[in-house]
């Protein structure tokens, strides 16, 4: 274990403790922004866990998130199961989905994976609506809990911290080492005897688990859930943008991207509610053409220039 690794985790722990105080010093509008930001931090870090080392752009966030939120709502509304039981069960459904998607696409080139995840949330939404309309009857579901915004915030913070810790541990494990080789050159990785498909699928399942867990935790915030709300394709794209804006080469990159983007996005959604799609497109183009390696890339370039 290198000294810089411990320094990184120490810094992260300090930030988590600092972040835990946010609900104590603020409430109302800024707390709700903080909850949104914390949700995106957890989602974007979970996204980077898989997409950072593999360079595969996953658009499955909306599907996993939706599964989490929707299952909690179904369990609580239709079957009177407690929130905590559903929170324990629902993410594993997402893990199964991740395993299926991964097994089908990750043996092949990355492009099939992107295409498959592109319509995934939309497809599952269609399937769920169909089942609901034809067999279950009810359309809206309620998630009624005693949680306040602050509770949701703390739960999201714990998830984000755990995802970060797992990412930190993976980077230092055999799996992480394998992923580094796969990311650099998949051919070399295969020749070294690494089961590249299995490694990628395993990582994708971890991402799926935590993404669904975020969906579970955020569900009480909406209190009224319907498929069109939780299976949102836009969410998948927002997470990709935030992660790329921060930079995906480092695990802490997405966090740097989420905070400014959440604030900008909040402003745009309030000022130009009808033009959000256009600005979403513009952000993608700006990132690809002007900051291809994100803030992390910019910072490291500056640091190198100072040294050299």
């Amino acid at each position: 274990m290198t000294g810089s690794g411990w320094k990184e985790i120490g810094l992260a722990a300090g930030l988590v403790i600092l972040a835990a105080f946010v609900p104590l010093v603020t409430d109302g509008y800024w707390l709700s922004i903080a909850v949104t930001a914390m949700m995106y931090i957890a989602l974007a870090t979970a996204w980077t866990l898989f997409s950072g080392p593999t360079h595969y752009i996953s658009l499955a966030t909306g599907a996993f998130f939706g599964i989490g939120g929707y299952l909690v709502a179904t369990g609580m509304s239709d079957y009177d199961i407690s929130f905590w039981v559903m929170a324990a069960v629902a993410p594993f459904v997402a893990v199964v989905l991740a395993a299926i998607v991964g097994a089908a696409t990750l043996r092949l080139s990355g492009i099939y994976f992107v295409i498959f995840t592109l319509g995934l949330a939309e497809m599952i939404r269609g399937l769920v609506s169909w089942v609901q309309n034809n067999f279950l009857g009810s359309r809206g579901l309620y998630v009624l809990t005693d949680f306040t915004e602050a509770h949701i915030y703390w739960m999201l913070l714990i998830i984000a911290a755990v995802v970060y810790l797992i990412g930190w541990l993976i980077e230092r494990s055999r799996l992480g080492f394998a992923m580094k080789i796969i990311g650099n050159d998949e051919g070399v990785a295969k020749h070294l005897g690494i089961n590249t498909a299995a490694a990628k699928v395993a990582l994708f399942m971890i991402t799926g688990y935590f993404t669904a867990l975020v969906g579970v935790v955020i569900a009480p915030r909406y209190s009224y859930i319907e498929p069109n709300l939780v299976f949102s394709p836009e969410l998948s794209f927002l997470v990709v943008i935030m992660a790329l804006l921060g930079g995906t080469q480092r695990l802490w990159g997405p966090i740097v991207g989420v905070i400014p983007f959440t604030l900008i996005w909040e402003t745009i959604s309030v000022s130009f509610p009808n033009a959000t799609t256009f600005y979403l497109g513009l952000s993608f183009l700006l990132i690809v053409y002007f900051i291809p390696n994100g803030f992390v890339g910019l910072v490291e370039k500056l640091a190198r220039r100072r040294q050299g």
Partner: protein
Amino acid sequence: MDILVSGLLLGGTYALVAMGLNLQYGVARIMNLASGEMLVLGALAAFWLFTTAQLSPVLTMIMVAPLAFIGNWLIYQLLLRPLVKRAKNQGQLEVDSILATFGMSFALVGIMVAIHGEYFTYSYLANPFEILGTTVALNRFVAFVVALIIGVTLVLWLNFTRPGTAVRAVSVNTEAAKLVGINVPRISALSFALGGAVTAAGGTLISTFITLDASVGVIFTMKALIIVIMGGVGDMRGSIIAALLLGLVETAVATLIDPGLTLVSAYLIFLGILLFRPQGLFGKRAT
């Protein structure tokens, strides 16, 4: 029989859209995720000219195609060429082009919502028409025939002319095409532009019998991608057969089970292809 006829008619127009995407991905090597928006743009033009000037969508198509050709050529030269130059390898180019075309796709949706935020509803040739003992709407049949004409012309052009052969050569092997003196950047730009023109033409045709709106493009991108992969990347005949197949399956699912499940059925086909024939229905297994 109803399903067979309607399915084939629908598949015919899908084929056109998929051929457009196949030219862009199979030859220019650009995974264009804004393809569906190009289609919707064609549909918007047809809707707009029909409601304001009563112009027939077929005439609109003849105007839209050259405009889309120029537009896509500019997109390739100004936005995508820098990415091709910047990319160190095919993987890098794929990631960059996916992200850039996502950006274009959302920007285009935003612009189209601003122009017309509601459904593109208009009625053109919505008369019953008898074919093979089945009654279908005349507009579906006309769209199919026009799509067929464009598709056959395209296949003939690719197979029997010099530029068409150059396009196929680049599709098979970019490096080797350079060695035999083909100007690869020029052919790539040409294919990308041509693909966009074909897609937009397909959009004007589809709008005569399916009511579209500004944000529906991604569904068509998805379907076109599934068709291209099913038929084999770079393989035009494969695209046509795969498109007809998808048209049939979707129509069958929509009539027999539920119209809301067409995307689910497309996904099931996709899953099957990925699991059993990832090289496409007619592709050879990579060695």
